[in-house]
């Protein structure tokens, strides 16, 4: 494996840290993919009409496939103290559970309004959990914009799940943490099994009743980079994290699996024999896409915390040139392994002042900009090709078999520009 080298005189640029308008989603948006992942969970946002409007705007047409999320909209009488908030919440939850008796896990999701009025949803969840005899289980977390950015909603959700996980006792297991597509989970499970790791669990599991147990003999590995709070909570339950880059691209997936294998004392030769075929397949598939991406200048606006691993994949496996890699937050300890692989002189930015970042972006005239839906069409109209970032959290992108698909997500807007004469 080649290691990126730069001229000896080069120094890494300082990280740009700016505060100002942030063009990002709040953590409530996590509901949109989490409810597809945990198939018997329901997400009840306690918030305002804005929250309901946000979730339905983000969910698009998906909302009508018998959605497993809703909003309890706080009204004037709730704020004026004419209605007891606890009673109101109980009434709404009772109505919901009557309507959807199939629900096994109910999340009360905090929002900016509920946080600001200091509505204690954790206590409410505990009270209701008791009252309904733990069917469904009722938990709470915050997806508010003041606390969480986009994918951090998943982090808060999984953090809330951790205390409810059963005690694994002396059982040794590998826990893969972070919602990935079902097909990706199955691929990972097959690889780990072939390597010889006996017990592999995924958090979250597909069903409320199938959540993994945790204990001092649990080793966990993050499949997603935005899970700092969940990692901390698992650590408190005695589990230990396996540090690794994230399983994006052929290289990232290989290093990720090798890190897990090493933590379980697997003979490297055995790991290699299992990984050789899918890794070769991934590399071969990537070769065609690489030609379309090599040498292109790419600019990342902050969105999901996936930006650094994606940038690493694009730079090392697709040959792109990174102009600026923005991330909403940079968790140093969770990103160490990734940062070590990034080209040395990569300009990173943490946080956002969107107008100034747009100025920098326009000045650089990148070949492709990764950004949110609020910025994409306006940048296209200015003549700058874009790839909308939210697709990266909805599509299966992890693992060997998806490496070329992932690269294609970036290549397609460029191909389209070349194709159209309008």
């Amino acid at each position, binding site marked *: 494996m080649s290691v990126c080298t730069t001229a000896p005189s080069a120094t890494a640029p300082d990280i740009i840290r700016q505060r100002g308008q942030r063009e990002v989603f709040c953590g409530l948006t996590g509901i949109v993919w989490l409810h597809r992942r945990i198939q018997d969970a329901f997400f009840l946002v306690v918030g305002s009409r804005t929250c309901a*409007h946000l979730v339905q705007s983000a969910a698009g047409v998906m909302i009508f496939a018998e959605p497993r999320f809703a909003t309890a909209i706080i009204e004037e009488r709730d704020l004026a103290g004419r209605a007891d908030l606890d009673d109101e919440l109980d009434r709404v939850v009772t109505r*919901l559970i009557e309507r959807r008796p199939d629900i096994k896990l109910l999340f009360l999701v905090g929002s900016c309004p509920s946080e600001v009025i200091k509505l204690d949803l954790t206590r409410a969840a505990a009270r209701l959990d008791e009252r309904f005899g733990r069917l469904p289980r009722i938990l709470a977390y915050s997806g508010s914009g003041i606390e969480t950015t986009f994918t951090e909603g998943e982090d808060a959700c999984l953090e809330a799940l951790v205390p409810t996980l059963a005690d694994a006792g002396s059982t040794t297991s590998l826990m893969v943490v972070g919602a990935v597509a079902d097909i990706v989970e199955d691929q990972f499970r097959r690889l780990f099994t072939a390597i010889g790791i006996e017990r592999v669990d995924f958090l979250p599991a597909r069903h409320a009743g199938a959540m993994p147990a945790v204990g001092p003999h649990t080793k966990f590995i993050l499949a997603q980079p935005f899970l700092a709070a969940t990692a901390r909570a698992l650590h408190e339950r005695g589990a230990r994290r396996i540090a690794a880059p994230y399983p994006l691209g052929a290289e990232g997936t290989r290093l990720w699996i090798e890190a897990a294998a090493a933590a379980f004392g697997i003979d490297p030769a055995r790991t290699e024999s299992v990984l050789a075929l899918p890794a070769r397949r991934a590399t071969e598939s990537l070769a*065609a896409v690489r030609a379309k991406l090599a040498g292109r200048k790419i600019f990342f606006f902050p969105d999901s915390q996936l930006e650094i691993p994606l940038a690493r994949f694009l730079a090392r496996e697709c040959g792109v040139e990174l102009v600026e890699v923005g991330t909403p937050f940079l968790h140093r300890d969770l990103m160490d392994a990734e940062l070590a692989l990034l080209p040395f002189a990569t300009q990173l930015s943490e946080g956002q002042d969107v107008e100034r970042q747009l100025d920098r972006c326009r000045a650089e005239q990148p070949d492709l900009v990764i950004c949110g839906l609020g910025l994409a069409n306006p940048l296209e109209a200015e003549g700058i090709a874009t790839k909308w970032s939210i697709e990266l959290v909805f599509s299966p992108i992890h693992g060997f078999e998806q490496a070329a698909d992932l690269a294609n997500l970036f290549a397609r807007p460029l191909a389209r520009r070349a194709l159209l004469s309008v």
Partner: protein
Amino acid sequence: MQLTLWTYEGPPHIGAMRIATAMQGVHYVLHAPQGDTYADLLFTMIERRDRRPPVTYTTFQARDLGSDTATLFKNAVRDAYDRFKPEAMIVGASCTAELIQDDPGGLAAALGLPIPVIPLELPAYQRKENWGAAETLYHLVRAATNGVATPDRTGRPVAVNILGPAALGFRHRDDLIEVTDLLGKLGVSINVIAPLGARFADLARIPAADANIVLYPEIAGTAAAYLARKFGQKTITTVPIGLNATRDFAAEIAALTGSTVPDDLESQARSSWYARSIDSTYLTGKRVFIFGDASHAIALARIAATEIGFTIAGLGTYSREFAREVKSAAALYNVEALISDDYLTVEAAIAAAQPELVLGTQMERHIAKRLGIPCAVISAPTHVQDFPARHSPFAGFEGANVLFDTLTHPLMMGLEEHLLGMFREDFEFNDQAAPSHLGAEAAAPVATAPILTGWEPSAEAELKKIPFFVRGKARKNTELFAAEHGVTLITIETIYDAKAHFSR
């Protein structure tokens, strides 16, 4: 607390954004937490605008709470002024900022900017999007006309203002083209169109016109009522949606100018002949359920009942502000008006009424789909496909043409329905067959090609995890690959080998 699966309207600050985005040179500074910028994508994606809405958000976070948020707001206002140099600014709070009680108006005034800065009070826990839009337009008009004297209009040609077209408005773009054309044919000049395309300074010219056309009462009603009181302007409230409503509208304009409606005004109107042609006979008495914003629901009910010959099986609105008007309209058709913003209540009402056609918003489209009833979209909220590239007005005579097509296409055409009755047992025309325009979706499953190689059950299972819209291709490619490589039993590995092979 209200349990909500779906909301017909956004919060009131979205209404304010729709006004600011429609206008030129007006900037909106919104005190709002991180995340509220989601609203930008309504304009850039659903309406497909080519620039960001002129809105600056303070995007405060938890660590900013306390005295810091006021400073954050002032900085945001100052930065937005320096960067965008707007001609006027509106400032306000979103739902969360309303709770932390900074005073956007006072804070902005303290900066002493050299442009009008208009504070908005939009109670987010009581009111909704359309109310927010109406209130914003009213405050802008009031601020712009402050100090303007009532003009003497004697001896001048009659002129009108068109009020209401906004950003994210359902068919506003094309309705405006039709109404402008209609007014041209009626020989009346247009003074100001607002908010769409207007500058703040244009609003000050509004009082110079004789009358205000309230194209969308939900948005322009409040401003027009104010203008009538303050400047004695006439208000034209007939919404020209439908053949008869357009005729009424033309007559009202003609009365204003003291002229007669020109003979060739309806030369492009085809819907009246289409409705009378014999293929439309089958439309008689079809039961239709109508739900939407108040003005579209009322307009569509009149069209359905008098211009197409449907029977009204239900009429309702989510616009509580216009409940009285919808109730009066419902009384004309002997149905009880449904006034509700609860999607489940609407679903129950449609299920109970068992109509043959539903006219509604995108939510009713999904309800109708679930109930297996044909449907057409006639009101906001709508999704991206209802902001079409082609000219598709609802207003005026061309609007009536568009509506005839829109309301009849989801139904089977007359001849098709006739054949269905004749060949009840026929394989193509039977009770189970859906309308032919539904095409592939309703077609019988096509027999799959004979499989030459075998699939291992685990490989079949893996294939099922691939999204349905590419599964067919994945199956075909895998089998092709297997055949080429002499693989007789397809395993999971074969699927991925084939995937890698074809991705090259």
